[in-house]
């Protein structure tokens, strides 16, 4: 496979994962903004998912609709869903002969949907949740079509590598922000409930932990639970699984470099416990996670995408 093609598939997938993450965050945070929570603020969302500085974030944070508009359809916001989907589609466009026609059409329709005036109108005037749901469903269609139609070759491996790398980054980011500015021992049930809902971990949490909401359990679920599809551990396991498929004799050096990085990261997560994380400090720990993921991304650039 061409290095350029592998890179485009990888980025198509990363951007789609990011779009999904942003939309889910927005949907639940909007719901939470409608609930009567005193501590609710859009600032953490803006901090994770946009490049706004403190003042910029403070300016729009009090207005839910303005935040949604900024995060979904704003053309100036490099990380708006519109721009992220556009980049996913541009990557897909340049590798149309490596993805199925169905997948290309799905991305293309997503792109046209989000650029349509209806989305902006929906966020502005109607029930924003319906609009977000339309977009989230388009993303789910993308996942389904990838699963059902894409051949299980090298391209599929790069798609999944991009997806799980991005997911790992997102889960670490979400935790980092949610745990950062507050003394989390004091946070109430609603706070954790909305965090879990935003990453579809609420039901699993209830089934796993019987004793109500506790920050330690949330941390364990999002980092260490091996069955939770958004946990860091699950993400790295999937990453490792799809990476194994790239093993061929012709490119031994590249494989060994990445294999080392992924294996080391996997071990770090696997042999962590909530206690060890707290001892190290949540922040230091999550920063380590982010740095490791970044290093892997750079290694892919260097060894597989032919950056000199």
């Amino acid at each position, binding site marked *: 496979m*061409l290095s350029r093609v592998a890179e485009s598939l990888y980025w198509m997938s990363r951007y789609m994962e990011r779009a999904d993450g942003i939309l889910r965050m927005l949907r639940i945070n909007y719901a939470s903004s409608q609930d009567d929570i005193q501590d609710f603020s859009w600032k953490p969302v803006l901090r994770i998912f946009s490049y706004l500085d403190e003042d910029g974030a403070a300016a729009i944070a009090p207005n839910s609709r303005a935040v949604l508009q900024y995060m979904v359809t704003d053309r100036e916001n490099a990380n708006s869903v519109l721009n992220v989907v556009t980049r996913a589609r541009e990557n897909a466009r340049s*590798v149309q002969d490596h993805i199925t026609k169905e997948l290309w*059409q799905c991305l293309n329709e997503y792109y046209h949907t989000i650029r349509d005036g209806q989305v902006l109108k929906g966020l502005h005037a109607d029930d924003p949740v319906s609009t977000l749901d339309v977009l989230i469903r388009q993303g789910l269609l993308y996942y389904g079509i990838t699963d059902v139609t894409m051949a299980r070759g090298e391209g599929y491996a790069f798609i999944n590598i991009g997806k799980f790398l991005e997911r790992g980054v997102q889960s670490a980011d979400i935790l980092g922000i949610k745990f950062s500015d507050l003394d989390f021992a004091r946070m109430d049930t609603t706070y954790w409930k909305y965090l879990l809902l935003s990453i579809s971990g609420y039901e699993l949490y209830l089934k796993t932990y019987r004793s109500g909401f506790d920050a330690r359990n949330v941390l364990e679920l999002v980092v260490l639970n091996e069955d939770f599809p958004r946990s860091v551990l699950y993400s790295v396991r999937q990453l490792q699984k799809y990476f194994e498929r790239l093993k061929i004799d*012709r490119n031994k050096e590249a494989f060994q470099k990445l294999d080392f990085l992924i294996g080391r990261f996997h071990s770090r997560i696997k042999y962590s416990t909530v206690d060890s994380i707290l001892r190290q400090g949540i922040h230091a720990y999550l920063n380590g996670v982010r740095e490791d993921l970044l290093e892997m991304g750079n290694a892919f650039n260097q060894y597989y995408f032919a950056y000199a």
Partner: protein
Amino acid sequence: MQTTELLSSYLTDSAAWDEMYADSNVRQQYRCVLEFLEQMSVEELNKKEELAKKMFMSQGITFTVYSSGEGIEKIFPFDIIPRIITASEWRYIETGIRQRLKALNLFLKDVYNSQFILKDGVVPTDMIYSCPHFLREMIGFPVPYDIYVHVAGIDLIRDHDGTFYILEDNLRTPSGVSYMLENREITKRLFPDLIPRNNVRTVTEYPDILHRNLVALSPRQTANPTIVLLTPGIYNSAYFEHTTLARLMGIEVVEGRDLVVDNHRVFMRTTAGLQQVDVIYRRVDDEFLDPLVFRPDSILGVAGIMSAYRKGNVAIVNACGNGVADDKAIYAYVPAMIRYYLNEEPILKNVPTYQLDNREHREYVFANMNGMVVKKTNGSGGYGMLMGHSASEEEIGRYKTEILKDPRQYIAQPIINLSSAPCYMQGRLKPRRVDLRPYALFGPDGVQIVPGGLTRVALREGSLVVNSSQGGGSKDTWVLAS
């Protein structure tokens, strides 16, 4: 004439050949389609038109217009009514194109090798050496199987009496074939069962034939040669076509930056290291192909690719330097080429062409500007063209001054009244002018022409210019089996 609502404003121009009507009778080949259309309501037809647009859009068969820093996706206009060609018309076109392509290919071989045709004075030597597309780099280099023109798009038009004329030979990187394929797919969806009922010949084998020809050109004797399609990239207006063809042939689309030349061999950069490339179907123009040989500022090409080509380590399709044969000034000599190389009379006629560096011709043209179309010899896409009948005195005067600066750059042709075909316009059928571009594939086994082609249509009333850059659209083109 029947006066159903659909046809109520179908007013044909008596000076032009109409594809559907002969006097007041509907031609046999259009009857079945017309009956079918007449059973439909305007609402249904409008819905079909809407559906066609939607299908082009969702498949991304679009080109991008950039304005105020943002890309806007547009589709090339598509008219839902097919253009129909009878079996006997097609036989005539097919033999004519086959003959012409053989002669043009022999001409290229000759002009880059022995140059008999120049020595015998059939084509003037200065005509060749003054052509910017004549490449000295190609002289004395034996291309595989002596084939230069692997893919040709030959533009045909019909005069008022229905005679076919060759308007242009496109022998470099002719585009539009994906529209031939996609338009057919869309028609299948718009009008279920209509295609089999009319006994329309299929066009789907085009990519298979092309692929077979490409495989046959591989310099390495291997069961699985690496074949790539070289594109200028996603910003090229034909990018959709590049990916469609690659997908249909199962070959890789590459950009210049994906390729590298080492020791006169071409490789592509893959996730598993370098992989040798055997055949390149390039959709990049000659002058951008190799910055070491042609334009040094080109980033679309690959440094060293020409040396690999000349060493015979990679096949390039179409061959380089073909522009010397489809130059508009050389065009006038094609009938002579056919007689010279094949000892045959040309089957398809040329439009009479005046060379403006010939004084007699120029004086005649200047005296009759109103009935002439003047073109640049190396222009394309309808740019820089003067239509004498619709230009003002002032425009004509200005154009004359331009011509006198460098008359070799211009030719003139009498204006041919293109034939008209029915188009669907807001609930009515209306006649609009069309041309026809069939695609011919030349491989080691000979010339094959897929029964069909691209019909371009001038959607503006009375317009004779069908180029997409000038407001033209396209139609599905049916060739009937019997």
